[in-house]
C-alpha cells in the first residue's frame, strides 16, 4: 500500500486540536514520550514495511 500524501483526515482543524490537547500540561519529556508511543501505535496499524519506510523517508 503506497503512502498517501493527499489530504486524508476529515476535519483537519479538529484533529490538530486533539493532537495538541493530548500534549496539554505535559513537560517536554512527557510530550516526547507521548509522541514515541503514538508513532509506535500508528506504525503497527500501518504494518506494511514499505509504507513505513516511505513514511520515515518523507519525515526526514
Amino acid at each position: 500500500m503506497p503512502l498517501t500524501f493527499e489530504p486524508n483526515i476529515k476535519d483537519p482543524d479538529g484533529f490538530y486540536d486533539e493532537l495538541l490537547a493530548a500534549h496539554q500540561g505535559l513537560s517536554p519529556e512527557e510530550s516526547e514520550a507521548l509522541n514515541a508511543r503514538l508513532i509506535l501505535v500508528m506504525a503497527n496499524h500501518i504494518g506494511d514495511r514499505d509504507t513505513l519506510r516511505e513514511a520515515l523517508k518523507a519525515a526526514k
Partner: protein
Amino acid sequence: MTSLFDDELYPYRRSPDQDTVAQHPVVVVGAGPVGRTLALDLANRGTPVLVLDENSRVSHGSRAICFAKRTLEIADRLGFAEPLLAKGVEWSHGRVFHGDNEIYEFDLLPETGHRHPAFINLQQPYFEIYLVDAIRAAQAGGAPIEIRGHNRVTGMHNDGATLDIVTPDGTYHLTTDWLIACDGARSPMRDMMGLSFDGRVFEDNFLIADVKMAADFPTERWFWFDPPFKGAGASALLHKQPDDVWRLDFQLGWDIDREHELLEENVRARVDGMLGAGAEYELDWTSIYTFQCRRMQEFRHGRVIFAGDSAHQVSPFGARGANSGIQDADNLAWKLDYVIKGHAPEALIDTYSEERSLAADENILASTRSTDFLTPKSRASQTVRDAVLHLAESHAFARPMVNSGRLSTPCSYDGMSLIGPDRLPGLPRTRAGSPCLDAPLSEGFLLNRLGGDFKVLAINTDAPDVGLPTLTLSTAEHDPTGAVRDRYLGDAETAIYLIRPDQYIAARWQKASATDIRAALRIATGQEVRHAAHV
C-alpha cells in the same frame, strides 16, 4: 564450584615429539569447548588430531551457562549429550518484567517431537569435563586424539606450518598441515598473524553474581527492565543453574569502579536487594564484564583456520557465543576430514569461512539489536525503548519489540556454495541449506538415525543407489506423531533429502534420479567451488 577447578584434566607429560620435529595433519590450539569439540569430531572420523593448551584445567567460573538445542544435537552426534542432559537444567520459558509488571512471556519450544529441549543451563566447566570424558572414551576406543596440557604456542613460521611450543621442559617445534586456532577472543594466534578483529564496543558493564541457595523460583529466564529492586541497575536477570546455583546479572552502566563493585559487601547489597534482606546464599562466582560485537574478515588464512571466539565475538544476550563456536566445530570437522582424506578439494575449507561468516553476521546482528534495546545510546533511542516497554504492558503489538536477547538458533546457509537444488514445495524450515529438524520415529529420533556422514533420506519412496547410506522411512510405518510428514513431506507424496555430515540439508526433491543426487553431492562436497586466493 572450587573442586571442579582443582583437577588437572591433562597434566603435563613429556612427549617424544619434544626430541624431534614431528609432523601432524591437524593441530588445534586451545582446549576450550570449541577446540575439544572439533578434536573429538575429527578423531571420531579417524583423522588424527593434536590439541595444545597452555593450561590443564577447566575454565574458571561458570561462564557460559546456556546451551542450545543445536549444541545438544551436536553433542548427541558426538556421544556426550547424556551427561549434559542429566546434569543440566532444562528450560524453555521466559518472562520479561518492566519494573514490577510482567510484560512478556515466551516459550522457545512450543513444538513437541524433538529429542532435545530448547535450552539447558549448565556451568561451562561441566560442559568441558563431559567433553573431556567423551574424549577419554574415544581414546580408549582407539580414536587418534591427543591433548597436551602446559603446551603454549609462542611462535609460528612458514605460514603456520611450523610452531614454537613452550613447555615446563623448554621449547620444542613441530610441523602441521592444518592449524586450527580455538584460542579465544584474545587469540594470541590472531595477533601472531597480525590479523584485525574489528567491530563495536558497547559502553556498559554487567555484574554477574552466581549465588548458591535453596529457592523455589520456577526454572524460567526472568529479565527485568528498570528492576524494582534497590541497586539492581538498568536491567537484571535471574536464571537457574544446576547445584542450586542461580545466575544473577545486573546492568551497572559505563562509569563504574570495578574493584569497588566487586567487593563482596557491595555485591551482596545488590543481591540482597533482589532476593530480599535476610536471604541466605553463598556467592559462588562474581565477575564484571563488558562486551564487543566483532569478527574477523575471513576465518581461513591458508592453512590456519579460526573457530569460536577467536573468529567472532558477540554480547552474551542470546547465548550466541559458545553455541555458535560449537557449530563452527561441527561445520569444520567433516570438511577438514574430507579434504585430509582426499575425498574433496581444498576449496571445501573455504566454505567453512563462507557459511560460518554468515552465521557470525546473523549472531552479531541479533546481539547488536538486543544490546541497542538494553542500553540505549541516545536520548531518542531511550525514548523509543521506554515507549515500547510502556505500551507492552497493555498492548500485545509492542511485546515482540521487547528485546532482552534473541536466543540462539542455528543459521540457514541459503544460497551458499555447497547448497544444491530445493525441489519440494513449502516447508521452509527444512529447505536446502537448513539444519535438519528432529522428529520422533517409531523407534528413537530422526537425528540419531542420520549419523555423521552424508546420507540420503527417502520418505515414502526408495532412493536410487548412489553408494551412500540411505535411511528409508514410510510415514505409515515410522511416523507415529506425524512429525516427519509435517516437517519433511508437507503436501508431497514422496521426498528425497541429501543430508550432510553436520546434519544440514544439502538438497531435496519430491523425486530424484541417481544423477540428481550425484550432482548435489558434488556441489555439497565442494567439487564445484572454485578455489579462492588466500593471503
